[in-house]
């Protein structure tokens, strides 16, 4: 935090209640400005100003802060230092590196822009343009080859343009070094950006391109387009975090920003270790080297949790501007909303639903709208996709965070407790989920991969719905009382659920599934179901079909490689021959 030139703008603390601090006497304070409090210079953000007094939310534990302590206006908003060194590292909600921090997190740490280890690190800068070139915002200045598995591109910052009048000569530079002068502006290697402000771009792209997650139930049934937003509501124990971790590991994005917002410390350790051990098949590096982890666990200060969501998406936008497809995973947005609620209550705001402040919906909307597939200032096509977990209290899907979130996302993956309890993972329900871009994505598959993705999806959805309807009927009258073709539908539902939709995160063959293998598995299942219906029509009794060995179909996902579509297709003839033998 840099003090404004001239006299320090000092005032004093008058009230402390948990993370809420009230101060008086700081001149010309503006909303969102950071104020340093007390001898430890605790970082606090201005959220309300009345006359000479102001209310702040503190980003640290406020134990020991006393009325009369000095409060100093910093002139800055909450900024993150965006530069090389983000990939592969872990940060807290204020983008301060945790990788280099002490074992116990006490309040006396430097801000992200002043962290000594970050500023001391040396980078190689390789220029890409010559002095004298006319440059616009977003144009490439050079690259930093030693900053992770994706090429780190240093761009002309937003709002800066003109002739490149000077370029750094030495190849070794630091985050705060000036590396170029463009139109009279100094451009430093790392950029300071206020995290609550979205980074600008040229235009939104309209074409829907699917994000391939490697998770069949998502890729085949409830897809997500790059640059749109999805929410994952699910009660505890429904496997939310595991699903998000799978997406972090396997989706075809260039960069992943994983925001652990008010969640478990052990989980963050697990993500970190899991990603460190896995190889990125696209780059050959480790998966952690394309990942930025923002960890504000549930026992860390609550208001930094509120900021962590914005920090995460700002980092994502930074990589988007370099031309990459970025996925932001926020686990969990409910904990973020709780931080909002906690503070609003302490501030005496009138509550709307369940104690949440009245602006909850608009805050959520503003966050999810930062997801976009865009043409960047530099003319690259790139995207930020947002996937937010929602943790409804008591599994109640009518609570405010869940209902408001549903309005602003394009895809909803509702996790079902019954599925989870029967160990059907990922427990994505096919009754309460949606994918609003499914038609557009179907067109993409048709145009680009020439596959009949939409038709396959439609057939699966109707089969599952029919099987569910018949299952509830069978519970009353017994499955044996159903006519043969309906018993085959029941069987087909089971084959689809167990053979395609269920996916083991722990299996080497099954944790990731290519689009082609997913399609092949569906085709195999559908062919077998068609064959069974044909047998019924030819008079084979349903019981003998039900007792047939479907192991070939059910184990196909496990016994073929992650991208082995041919291996799955090869089972088709054998499976059909086995059934034919029943007639």
């Amino acid at each position, binding site marked *: 935090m840099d003090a404004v030139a001239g006299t320090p703008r000092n005032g004093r603390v*008058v*009230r*402390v*209640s*948990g993370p809420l601090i*009230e101060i008086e006497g700081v001149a010309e304070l503006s909303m969102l400005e950071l104020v340093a409090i*007390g*001898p430890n210079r605790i970082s606090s953000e201005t959220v309300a100003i009345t006359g000479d007094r102001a209310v702040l939310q503190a980003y640290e534990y*406020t*134990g*020991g*802060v*006393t*009325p*009369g302590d000095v409060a100093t206006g910093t002139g800055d908003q909450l900024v993150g230092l965006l530069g090389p060194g983000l990939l592969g590292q*872990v940060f807290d909600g204020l983008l301060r590196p*945790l*990788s280099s*921090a002490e*074992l*116990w*997190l*006490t309040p*006396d740490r430097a801000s992200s822009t002043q962290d000594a280890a970050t500023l001391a690190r040396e980078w190689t800068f390789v220029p890409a343009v010559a002095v004298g070139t006319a440059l616009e915002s977003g144009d490439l200045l050079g690259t930093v080859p030693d900053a992770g598995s994706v090429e780190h591109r240093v761009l002309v910052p937003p709002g800066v343009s003109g002739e490149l009048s000077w370029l750094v000569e030495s190849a070794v530079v630091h985050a705060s070094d000036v590396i170029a002068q463009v139109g009279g502006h100094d451009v430093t290697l790392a950029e300071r950006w206020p995290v609550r402000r979205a980074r600008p771009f040229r235009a939104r792209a309209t074409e829907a391109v699917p994000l391939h997650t490697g998770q069949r139930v998502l890729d085949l049934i409830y897809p997500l387009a790059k640059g749109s937003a999805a929410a994952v509501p699910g*009660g*505890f*124990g429904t496997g939310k975090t595991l699903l998000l971790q799978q997406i972090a590991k396997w989706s075809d994005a260039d960069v992943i920003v994983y925001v652990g917002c*008010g969640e*478990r*410390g*052990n989980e*963050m*350790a697990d993500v970190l*270790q899991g990603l460190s051990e896995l190889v990125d098949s696209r780059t050959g590096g480790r998966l952690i080297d394309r990942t930025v982890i923002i*960890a504000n*666990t*549930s*026992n*860390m*200060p609550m208001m930094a949790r509120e900021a962590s969501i914005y920090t995460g998406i700002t980092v994502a936008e930074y990589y988007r501007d370099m031309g990459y497809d970025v996925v932001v995973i926020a686990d969990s947005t409910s*904990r973020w909303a709780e931080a909002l*609620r*906690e503070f609003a*209550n*302490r501030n005496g705001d009138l*509550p709307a639903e*369940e*104690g949440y402040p009245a602006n909850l919906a608009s805050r959520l909307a503003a966050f999810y709208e930062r997801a976009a597939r865009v043409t960047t200032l530099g003319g690259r096509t790139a995207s930020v996709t947002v996937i937010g977990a929602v*943790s409804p*209290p*008591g*599994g*109640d899907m009518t609570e405010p965070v869940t209902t408001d979130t549903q309005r602003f996302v394009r895809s909803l993956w509702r996790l079902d407790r019954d599925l989870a*309890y*029967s*160990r059907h993972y990922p427990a994505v329900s096919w009754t309460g989920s949606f994918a609003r871009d499914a038609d557009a994505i179907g067109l993409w598959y048709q145009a680009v991969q020439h596959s009949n993705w939409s038709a396959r999806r439609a057939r699966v959805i109707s089969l599952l719905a029919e099987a569910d309807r018949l299952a509830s009927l069978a*519970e*009353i009258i*017994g499955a044996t009382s159903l006519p043969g073709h309906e018993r085959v539908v029941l069987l087909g539902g089971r084959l689809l659920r167990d053979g395609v939709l269920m996916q083991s995160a722990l299996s080497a063959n099954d944790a990731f599934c290519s689009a082609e293998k997913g399609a092949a598995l569906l085709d195999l299942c559908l062919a077998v179901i068609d064959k069974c219906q044909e047998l019924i029509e030819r008079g084979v009794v349903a019981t003998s079909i039900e007792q047939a*060995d479907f192991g070939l179909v059910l184990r196909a996902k496990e016994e073929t490689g992650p991208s082995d579509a041919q291996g799955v297709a090869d089972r088709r003839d054998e499976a059909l021959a086995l059934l034919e033998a029943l007639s």
Partner: protein
Amino acid sequence: MSDGIPRPETGLVSHGDVRELRGPLVVLGDVEGVGWDESATVVVDGEDDRHGLVLEVSDDQVTMQVLEGTDGMALGGIHVTFAGHPLEIPVGSGWLGRVCNGRGEPLDGGPPISGATTQPVNGWPLNPVHREPPKEPVLTGISVIDGLATLVRGQKLPIFSVPGLPHLALATQIAAQATSGGASFRVVFAAMGLTHADIAYVRDRLEERSAAGELVLLLNAADDPVIERILTPRIALTVAESLAFGEGHDVLVIMSDMTSYAEAVREVSAARREIPARRGYPGYLYSDLATLYERCGRVRGQEGSVTIVPVLTMPAGDITHPVPDLTGYITEGQIVLSADVEARGIYPPVDVLSSLSRLMRSGAGKGRTREDHLDVAAQVLAAIARARQSVELAELIGAGSLSETDQRYIEYQARVERELFNQRDDETRTFEDTIGRAWEALATLPRQELTMLSTAYLDQYLPKPHG
């Protein structure tokens, strides 16, 4: 580790301008230089000292909660001195073998606990980067836990119960039997809001471990001051952290009953007229519980671990009640006790299908317990789920009309419950015994139903059919 911000110049000033007494709260006026969250000593004429924690400071006014409650206090005759820093307690092995009340004062007739160093009871957040993902099991000797929901060192795994079920028997059995395979194991048992009969039972069950100097017992009875419960788990965890990360022990912390703790938090919140979230509990209950539960874990490159087993009773058996619900969101799984299972005469009455240990996949299996463990557990559970359908079907159409397979499933359920799940409340089973019983039960089923077990495991472990 920092020990707060020392403020020696204010430490010994006594304040007597009491403006308001409301529930557990005291509002003092004319106070200067007192920081938020400081601890205080409250002297009431002619009575024992009480203890306070600052909840809000505003100009010259301080609002604090009194752990012992405000009963008998009047606007005059009270003197408060502030410590100048948040509450700290002595830590170290001086706690082992001791029995204390909910504020950490001895109940066993011994001298006050002392230690070479003190630590703030709130602790500091553990940097997630320094955490080691938990991966070694804690063996409890209880089949249904070791076999199906393995407790892992550094995990937090709660027991959800309803009043009337033997959760205290289970909690004390875990406390008495748990070991971590050779490493030095210590237990901190924090009782909150338990009846005197329950407390006597706990002391009796854990006597052996206490005598061996492996146990710290903190006891807050149902008729002890309610607000004291806010402190009890924090003392327990601060002691546990020092035993684990200072001295390298594997420490198990059992906290029972967390519902009583949450009620104390709610009482303070209501007295402060805060806007309630669900069922009158404050909106920060999640974060408050998280600051307790998140103190479990392991540290990279260090010996020792803190494992937490909170016990809570769900009011009216409602798992969506805020206390179990928020707990479930923070903890890594849950062990759910069920009255239906109890009614079938099974101890411990664990509802295995709603119970889950999320860390089991890294804490069990080859090199941890046994190579076939995870697959066997998955198969036992899948078969139980299938058996329930068969039982429901039998109720509809009669057991006689069931298919052969359904009948075998019903037989399997009876057998697995009797042989594997059921055990005496003082019985310690080895892991080999537990998994052997699981295989015996699975042998009731036709071999082709065991689809979750590989052919190799079936050949090696499946017992031959009897007779």
